[in-house]
């Protein structure tokens, strides 16, 4: 119910702002945007949505598949941390436009660019979150393992991996909120299909209401995915009673 009131508040503020700036070129009103939103509920938009969704899922997979092992190794070995930290920090600091040049030279316009750009912008966060996870492993549990001479491999699998689960969920939560923004931006800059490409076309035709309607699509997609991940995460938290 509170969410409904929140959405209503956004619509009211939006409408008032449109009243102050009545130009559709600057801020189309909610009614006009909704009309366009209904109009673009067609095959083309759904294909774009599907393309963005797939890129988002692939990106999330890459972020977990790269960020988790790299963060894990950096977390358990100080030497590896010192060795890899500069690289990860540099990747984190490089502006997206700089990646754009490399990506366009390598793959041109296509699906690879948005996936690579969004992965690179999210992997460092995943790496450093995993490092924190590994380092926060309960020392007391490690002492138990040491006293009872549990093999190192078992400790890594049963204690470390178990301990970083909450951090994996946290990476998923953070990524799920940001991945869509990153993918749509990547599509906008160097994609051949997807919501970002449609937004780019609408911008070229100065079709601002369409830009807004497509943005709503992206926001709905992002919120739905983030919510789903949160529900999943809450179930796991509940099972372990760690929260």
């Amino acid at each position: 119910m509170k969410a409904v009131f929140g959405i209503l508040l956004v619509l009211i503020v939006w409408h008032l702002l449109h009243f102050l700036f009545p130009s559709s070129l600057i801020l189309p009103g909610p009614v006009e945007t909704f009309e366009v939103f209904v109009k673009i509920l067609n095959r083309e938009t759904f294909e774009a949505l599907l393309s963005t969704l797939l890129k988002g899922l692939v990106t999330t997979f890459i972020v977990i598949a790269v960020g988790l092992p790299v963060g894990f190794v950096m977390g358990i070995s100080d030497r590896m941390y010192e060795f890899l930290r500069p690289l990860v920090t540099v990747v984190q600091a490089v502006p997206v436009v700089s990646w754009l040049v490399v990506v366009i030279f390598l793959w041109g316009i296509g699906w690879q660019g948005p996936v690579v750009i969004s992965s690179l912008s999210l992997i460092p966060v995943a790496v450093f979150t995993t490092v924190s996870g590994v380092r926060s492993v309960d020392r007391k549990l490690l002492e138990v393992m040491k006293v009872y001479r549990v093999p190192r491999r078992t400790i890594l699998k049963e204690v470390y991996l178990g301990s970083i689960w909450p951090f994996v969920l946290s990476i998923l939560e953070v990524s799920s909120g940001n991945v869509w923004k990153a993918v749509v931006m990547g599509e906008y800059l160097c994609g051949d299909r997807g919501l970002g490409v449609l937004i780019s076309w609408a911008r070229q035709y100065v079709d601002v209401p369409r830009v807004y309607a497509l943005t709503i699509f992206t926001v709905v997609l992002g919120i739905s995915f983030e919510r789903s991940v949160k529900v999943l995460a809450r179930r796991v938290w509940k099972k372990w009673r760690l929260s």
Partner: protein
Amino acid sequence: MRKDFNGMKVIENWSFSVGKGDRVTLLGPSGCGKTTFLRIVSGLEDFQGKVEVFTDKIGYVFQEPRLIPWKTITENLMLIRRDPDKMASLLEKVELKGFENHYPWQLSEGMKQRVNFVRALLVDPELLLLDEPFDALDLKTKMKVMNLLVDLWQKRRFSIVFVTHNVKEAVFLSERIFLLSGRPSKILDEVELKEKARDFTDEKLFGLEKMVIERLLSLLR
């Protein structure tokens, strides 16, 4: 043996031996290095001096249960030693039969502490280290676990090193008690208990407890 923490002396020149099958208690105030001593013996702490441990089959009942929260009781125990029959038998002895598939958060502190005992006994220890493990247990369970330890000790004659500040527990469980001073701690005296109490209601226990308290007070005066 000596142990300093950031230049502050905690343990000052302790020297004693524990033979195979001995039951020894280190009795002293909080912060006198009792737990540190057990950590040293089990290889968890650095120190100055020399400690020789005659076995690597060590069971350590920690002060707190230290169970992996996302694993069931069975999974926690199997990680230490895969012996389902022995595990089942020990869990039954500490009245935890039926809780094998529970997670630690589903058990009370006392129940978790009993799992801690089972874990230590599961490895068939030749040296059992007990770090004030009875505080979380109610009187009935405490007596049950203590009797279980004594029974097992009579059958297997493993060595027990027990640290506590509880005189009654020390007197009941051990044959020799080392009385410790506060920090930096020294061994003030060694009390040998020739008589043994049968249980917590045995009159002998009160007499022995009184004797140890009086000795301790005379040393601290």
